[in-house]
């Protein structure tokens, strides 16, 4: 296992968000993580990169921390650095000279389709463009394990489709192992070898695993015509609906009974 999470418990204060989470990702696998909003998916990724210590259990890694790339849920870039220098930053940290780092950064910006935008500051880019700069920033470091937190959530359907396609291309070219958090069930089934469902929080744990044994690389449009795609998406939908409905507090707010004073 490249990544082996055992009995993980993550807490904010005394309140455990995740409890008894077991999750393994083998080299070369593409695993998607789904679950209700707020159940602790981002928190799990933070544990893997070491931004937050587990309150119990452990995260075993069969690679160095610096070989992990994390694409965050939001696209915060350094506002005072241009797109090019944002991408170059990680390379500089790893000891590349300024000129080298900038050259490599420009190559990656070109490959995410932002070749002309190297000199723009983040606030001069659109949300989708910033997302792509963030992708370039992570990929430029040539990670072996790529963690992605809802990478395409804010993008429109077409951009999303092509960016996903590009991303799958890079994953295959670079032989990446991937753990991706997503809200999009179809996307999860279309791209992954396995989909893992986290239950409702607090104390969320793994509620189900679905293997998708369709060969990779896949054609994103074709795969949706496969029988297994339809069956698994359906099953996931039902399982996730179950989780989302679980909270007992789901109630309509009471109408205000107080008299309105004129």
């Amino acid at each position: 296992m490249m990544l082996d999470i055992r009995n993980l418990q993550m807490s904010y204060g005394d309140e455990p968000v995740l409890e008894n989470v077991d999750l393994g990702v083998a080299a070369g696998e593409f695993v998607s993580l789904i679950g209700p909003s707020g159940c602790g998916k981002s928190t799990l990724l933070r544990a893997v990169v070491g931004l937050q210590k587990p309150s119990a259990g452990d995260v075993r890694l069969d690679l160095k921390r610096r070989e992990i790339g994390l694409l965050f849920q939001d696209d915060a870039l350094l506002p005072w650095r241009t797109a090019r220098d944002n991408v170059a930053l990680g390379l500089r940290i790893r000891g590349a000279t300024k000129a080298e780092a900038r050259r490599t950064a420009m190559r990656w910006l070109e490959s995410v389709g932002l070749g002309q935008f190297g000199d723009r500051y983040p606030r001069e880019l659109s949300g989708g463009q910033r997302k792509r700069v963030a992708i370039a920033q992570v990929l430029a470091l040539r990670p072996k394990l790529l963690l992605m937190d809802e990478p395409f959530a804010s993008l429109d359907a077409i951009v999303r489709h092509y960016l996903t396609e590009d991303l799958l291309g890079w994953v295959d070219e670079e032989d990446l192992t991937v753990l991706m958090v997503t809200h999009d069930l179809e996307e999860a089934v279309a791209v992954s070898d396995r989909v893992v469902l986290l239950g409702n929080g607090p104390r969320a744990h793994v509620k189900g695993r679905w293997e998708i044994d369709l060969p990779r690389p896949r054609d994103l449009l074709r795969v949706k015509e496969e029988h297994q795609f339809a069956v698994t998406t359906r099953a996931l939908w039902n399982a996730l609906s179950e989780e989302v409905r679980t909270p007992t507090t789901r109630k309509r707010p009471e109408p205000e009974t107080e008299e309105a004073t004129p």
Partner: protein
Amino acid sequence: MKQKQAMFWLQVRRATALAVVLLLWEGISALGWVDPFYAPPPSAIGGAIAELFADGEIYGHLEATFGAALLGLFLGLIGGALLGFIAALLRPVAELLEPVMAMLNAIPRVILAPLFIIWLGIGIASKVALSFILVVVLTFFAVYNGIRDVDTRLVERVKTLGGGSWTLLREVYVPSVVAWVMGSLKVAVGFAFTGAVVGEFVASSRGLGYLLAFAQSTYNAALTFALIVLVLVFVMILFGLAGALERYLLRWKYR
């Protein structure tokens, strides 16, 4: 291009408005509606300014005031930035400094002028000290809050890219703080001059504040106005410079 033109016409309108006010004032004086002893006409104020420069004596006074204000500004910015940084990074220092700074922030700090004059004499040192104390408190809070309000997402991003404390300082903390300090730079310039002039006003033998005290004691309203106008002009020039520096350092924000 359009924007530049609009700016130009705005300036023209402002200049016209100012000219109209000055003309009215001059007219009212000429008609004898106000006593020129209290409100001398613009021409008399202009004359007083010309006189100040004519005998060349003003340069020594300008030098004294500028010297005290700029030195106080410089030391205040450096001192405030250092103290703010240290307080934000070391809890015990913050616990020690924050109440003192908060207290200094709450009082009108110019009341310290007599104390500085007792301690440091009527020379330039007491004026620098007053400028410094005005600026240092302002800068301290700008830096202290700037560091504590740093965007944690950026900190985490740089950490996951492999950055250590040094990289974090250079890539995240310092630029955030520069942004905050630039936001209060103009106020700091104003404070520095307040400190220098008030210090001179209280007790000195040189400087614009000294001239102001002299003008006041001789009931010379024209000279008083002339000095006020001079301070105004110099502070405006420094504001312009501070603005240019801000636009340069924060070009990622304004471009």
